[in-house]
């Protein structure tokens, strides 16, 4: 594993809202090394998907993105739209959620997988289609040479997810950004998607998920978001054996295999993010007076955790 291929510095994303500006992502610092698999976990609305889209500047025009996103010595937020268009798909690829309508229903699967090769690699249509078929075959689509000429509705959910991964890999992108690859997917299919992701050995993958089962088996490092902020970053084994942040501890304790113990309450409303103090303190079993100030991310044995409990 080499140096950081993707580095996010002080990234913030703001959306205009009737009640003022909402900061959906707040000062996130994260580096992903070459070949590394990182899972970004957190509940719905914690800002993890917005972060992923912000990296590729795929957010709607109303969003304001602050900070820096470095990819191999280039600031993606400073790139011209043309430069960025050339990099999307070729260097960094986005893999959307499979269950939704991410595929074009009126184009055959083969054409959709071949398109990035025509655009980014300058291949002919015939050559790109040939490669698309071999890619689909490699990703486990049965009878790929026939099924490449079928339409998305003729594919099962697990196969559609494979197609989306194939599209992400088509132009040989080295960094894959995946959004909830196992959301709303049942057990056998979840296994299938896990195996597919485990087969992406040489790629750098940052995946957003709320599926801890998947994160534990796929990632090497886990980053946890709560209410728009990173609250913990840790190697996978450390995280699942000894989570540090009280939210992370509650998250793991809520798993059926670990006793299904629920943490009461809800995450704070995104309009209250501007208030001072730790955003988790209202639900935190360990909150004390210091939590009225916002905790920074503390470094501890190669892990980072945003909690006053770990202040020196």
């Amino acid at each position, binding site marked *: 594993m080499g140096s950081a291929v993707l580095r996010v510095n002080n990234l913030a994303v703001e959306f205009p809202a009737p009640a003022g500006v909402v900061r959906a992502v707040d000062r996130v610092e994260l580096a992903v090394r070459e070949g590394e698999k990182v899972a970004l976990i*957190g*509940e*719905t*609305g914690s800002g993890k998907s917005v972060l992923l889209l912000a990296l590729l500047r795929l957010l709607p025009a109303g969003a304001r993105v602050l900070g820096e996103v470095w990819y191999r010595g280039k600031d993606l937020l400073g790139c011209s739209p043309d430069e960025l268009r050339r990099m999307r798909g070729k260097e960094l690829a986005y893999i959307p959620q499979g269950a939704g309508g991410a595929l074009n229903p009126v184009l055959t699967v083969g054409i959709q997988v071949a398109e990035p090769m025509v655009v980014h690699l300058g291949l002919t249509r015939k050559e790109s289609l040939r490669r698309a078929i071999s890619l689909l075959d490699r990703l486990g689509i049965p009878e790929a040479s026939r099924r490449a000429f079928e339409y998305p509705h003729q594919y099962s*959910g697990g196969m559609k997810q494979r197609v989306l991964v194939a599209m992400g890999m088509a132009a040989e992108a080295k960094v894959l950004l995946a959004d909830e690859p196992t*959301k*709303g997917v*049942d*057990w*056998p*299919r979840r296994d299938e998607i896990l195996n597919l992701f485990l087969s992406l050995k040489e790629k750098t993958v940052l995946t957003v998920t*709320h599926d*801890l089962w998947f994160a534990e088996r796929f990632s090497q490092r886990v980053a946890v978001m709560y209410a728009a902020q990173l609250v913990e970053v840790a190697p996978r084994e450390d995280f699942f054996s000894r989570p540090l942040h009280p939210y992370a501890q*509650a*998250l*793991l304790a*809520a*798993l*059926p*295999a670990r*006793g*299904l*113990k*629920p*943490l*009461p309450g*809800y995450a704070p409303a995104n309009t209250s993010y501007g208030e001072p103090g730790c955003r988790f303190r209202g639900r935190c079993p360990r909150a004390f007076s210091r939590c009225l100030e916002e905790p920074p991310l503390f470094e501890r044995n190669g892990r980072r955790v945003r909690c006053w409990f770990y202040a020196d």
Partner: protein
Amino acid sequence: MLIEGIDLRKSYRVGWLKKRVVRVLSRVSLAVSEGETVGIIGGSGSGKTTLGLILTGLIKPEGGRVLFRGRELDGMNVRERKSYRRKVQIIFQHPETAFNPKWKLLRSLSEPYRLYKIPFAEESVLKQIEAVGLGAEHLARYPAQLSGGELQRAAIARVMALDPEFIVLDEPTGMLDAITQAQIIRLFQDLQKDKGVAYLFISHDLELARLFCRRIYRLREGELETLGPEKGV
């Protein structure tokens, strides 16, 4: 016995010209008594939702009978049918599809009162939603302004307004994160302790079913197999 399905059979016609027949239930029998939780495990397309829909009377089986408190569904008179409709409810995996997106929550939650001519007061709705962990501020919101967990709680509150005796829970936590899932399952358990309601818990998560259900069955190729009695938590 509270609700009973006997020899239920159901198949669907699929394919472009609806020529292929897929049998999802072949002679399935299942009985649930008052206040207990029974689990049904199965993959997608195994027919577990179909079974839930038949027991709630939302679709008709091709063969077999459904009995509620010993009365056969087909032989019920209008009054019995209305009472069955009220006492047997269902909660779905995607709560966002169970609410009218153009209605504020208060209007959606007062609908059962209108339908069953239960005297309505805003306080009773408020009590109903406080019992599931929501508050007055949620009533003024549209479904799009609520999280998945909040919407699922609202769906539970709406169902509980009718004092049901049996609820089919069709993957009620499938789209929720771990903490919200644990909250919702505990809420179902509390409601059961309080009101004695029985559940049919449909899921693909055996681990979760083991914690929640007293008996578990697997639905495979149209037939139920017993996975043995389980210890609840």
